[in-house]
């Protein structure tokens, strides 16, 4: 039985995964240019300042685009197909990759409102995922 890949955080990305464990979506914010960034970087991708701090993001966003996987490219996902991979535009202005849960793949619509939920993938790791906003 193959398992899904489990992220191994490094010293730079640890706050993201520490936050997820506490069910908080943490993003880097630059105090020099007020820009948010994702994924994890050592310096701000907008202004290259090193003044990045971790802040809790709203967890709200909209579905920008997605695809639905039918072919098993990774044996860990053999029991998951068909599953979606989505890109979500967060309110903070960054776009992240995740899965939309709590909804059938056929009901996915670009532009739909989403908010973050957290799913356990191992004893130590939780991953942020997204679900449709009720109503």
């Amino acid at each position, binding site marked *: 039985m*193959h398992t*899904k*890949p*489990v*992220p*191994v*955080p*490094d010293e730079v*990305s640890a706050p*993201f995964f520490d936050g997820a464990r506490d069910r908080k979506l943490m993003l880097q914010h630059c105090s020099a240019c007020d820009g948010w960034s*994702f*994924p*994890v970087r050592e310096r701000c*991708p907008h202004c290259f300042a090193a003044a990045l701090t971790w802040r809790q993001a709203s967890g709200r966003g909209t579905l*920008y*685009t*997605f*695809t*639905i*996987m*039918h*072919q098993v*490219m*990774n*044996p*860990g*996902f053999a029991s*998951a197909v068909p*599953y979606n*991979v989505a*890109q979500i535009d967060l309110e903070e202005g*960054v*776009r*992240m*990759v*995740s*899965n939309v849960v709590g909804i059938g*793949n056929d009901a996915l619509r*670009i532009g739909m409102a989403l908010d973050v939920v957290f799913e356990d*993938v191992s004893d130590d790791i939780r*991953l942020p995922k997204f679900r449709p906003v009720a109503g």
Partner: protein
Amino acid sequence: MPLPADTDVSTPKYLRDKYAIVGIGETTYTRGSDKTTRALGTWALRNAAADAGIKTSDIDGMLSYSNNDSTSATFMAGDIGARLNFYMDCVGGGSSTEALIGIAIGVMEAGLCNCVALFRAMNGFSQVRIGGTGARSATPVGGDMLHNRAYGWQSAGQMFAPTFMRHMYDYGTTPEQVAMVKVVHSEHASNNPKAYYKKRYTVDDVLSSRIICKPLHLLDCCVETDNATAIIITRADRAKDMRHTPALIRGIVGRCSKPRMDMHYQTGPISRVGGYYAKDILWPNSGVGPEDIDATGAYDAFTFTSMLQLEDYGFCKKGEGGDYVSSGITRLGGKRPNNTSGGHLCEGYTHGMNMVIENVRQLRHDIDDSCPIGADGKRQHTYDYREGGCRQVKDIELTANLGWANPMTTSGMVMRRG
């Protein structure tokens, strides 16, 4: 076409037509070559030298690219009996062919060597398959993979599919339109004795093939094959002594990229690809525009990658790629055929090399189809493009190759009949 203010074209302008592709070579396109990449590379290089009408020892520069799935110039040079004055093995995929031809021109112009052979050898079906899937997926995920592999996003098709989804949403592009890329390329392949897949397909065939990752069906995806390919580049004045009409290199853009190559989808519309930026280098460098081009070689790793590149290089308006590829323009006999060999969807997967090789043959007016060979040793082309017939584009003078690494990086090249 106006130039961006910060583009210096003084040098490229003077290199137009100064260098040429004089030799092309390939192995068979197979699944299960039963040969090492070293043996395949040697085979293709010898064929390219014979095609040029030179001795392999006349090659004194060598370039290759791979993703650790090939062999290197250090082995190839000895195997073909060449003493090199320059060589470089690069990491890279689909945007490499045109970019490395640009490097070849640069090093020859700088006086480092005189005759460069570029090769790509790969057992892309029987050994290292593109995408790092299967057992290689089981490694722990760290670094930037943290934010994609853990969610089940890793193969090329998976990575590119969201771009196509958003294009459909923004512009109303349909899978039926894009399936025409496969239909047209399969028509071309049916007239190509070398093609791995020679069968002609219909739109229904594509749409009823099994879904890989929405909206991509199996037949939207390119073939995986084992093969090597080689291209020989030298100065145009030396090309006069060689066997074939040279394909003069008008202009190149190499590995031109969107912002944020690491996470291209972070920046701007995801359906914008590297060609959006590359067009402003390729066309001024070449001194021609899309409307001048007689045939294209737009990289078809997937049906819609051809479409996206044709759009962003300016062969049609943004968002009208679906109409362009389903209109008949890209078909043999149409205004501007694309991938007349059948490309990666049908002929074989070579990481871009075979699309350049095809256009070199087109520009020689000596495409290797099934037309009869005349007394002069050249095929007597019928321009009858029905199945099993001709593949030669009539009176072709200018071609454009549009290479694709991924949505963020592209290389391009314009060639002219010498």
